[in-house]
């Protein structure tokens, strides 16, 4: 297991990044009322986490350009929908 973790430290780093962002999210939302700028930050951080999961865990970075563009388009579209929803 240790050997595997060493050989694929990139995955562990990705996991630490998304877990770290989630911890930031927890701190940002500790207050009972979440002001609009914090909401935007929360949604953008979620989009960043999705990008990391797609690239590192799903190995989308190794897929043909078409799939990468389609996934990026989905992420941009959903982020736009949510940002407009909470504006």
């Amino acid at each position, binding site marked *: *297991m240790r050997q*595997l*973790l060493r*050989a*694929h430290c990139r*995955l*562990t780093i*990705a*996991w630490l990044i*998304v*877990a770290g962002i*989630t911890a930031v*999210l*927890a701190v940002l*939302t500790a207050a*009972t*009322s*979440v*002001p*609009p700028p914090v*909401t935007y930050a*929360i*949604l953008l*951080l*979620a989009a960043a*986490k*999705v990008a990391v*999961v*797609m690239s*590192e*865990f*799903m*190995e989308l970075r*190794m*897929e*043909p350009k078409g*799939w990468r563009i*389609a*996934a990026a388009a*989905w992420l941009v*579209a*959903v982020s736009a*929908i*949510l940002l*407009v*929803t*909470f504006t």
Partner: protein
Amino acid sequence: MPIPTDKAEVAGVVAVGARQPSGHRAGTDGIWVFILVDLTFFAVLFLAFGIERGKDPDLFNRTSDGLHAGLGLINLFVLLTSSWFAALAVQAYRANHIALAARLFCAAAGCGLVFAAVKVAEYRLEIFDVAAVADNPFFTMYFVMTGLHFLHVLIGVALLLGMARSMMLRRRTRSALRRYESTAIYWHMVDLLWIVIFPTLYLAR
């Protein structure tokens, strides 16, 4: 070292290194089509949520305040960790550590079961007033989105456990590797959907 060739596959010979050569693609076109169709379906749900919220934002904010964000956050950590296990399982299988790969898939499935248990506990806390839930459009969207996601989790757990068993019983081949990669990709999609659903329903105002 190269991934198994078709000849090696026929002979049942395993000849892989710890890393895939550059140019290797995880999963199949089929799984990516499925993933994008599923993600598009959820994008439509997010749009529907936005439209419904636009009709009465105060009601949506008030109702969202009553959700148990702490439980949702725990589930976010659980699924992220589960996704990490699944990604490591694929790498372990590629490196010919079959037993370790199977254990990691089981660990990912275990996290999925923890997610399901926490979610059921949360549902029980939320459905204390059936009438209030039934008349509230926020809860309609909440149960549709989290319910469909919950279904995806259950399917994912079954797939992960089935694939872990298959790893232990079947010979190691290129097509088997594709199946395990596709299962992991599906599980990562379940994870990323919760990454978006959680802040949308629980946190954003």
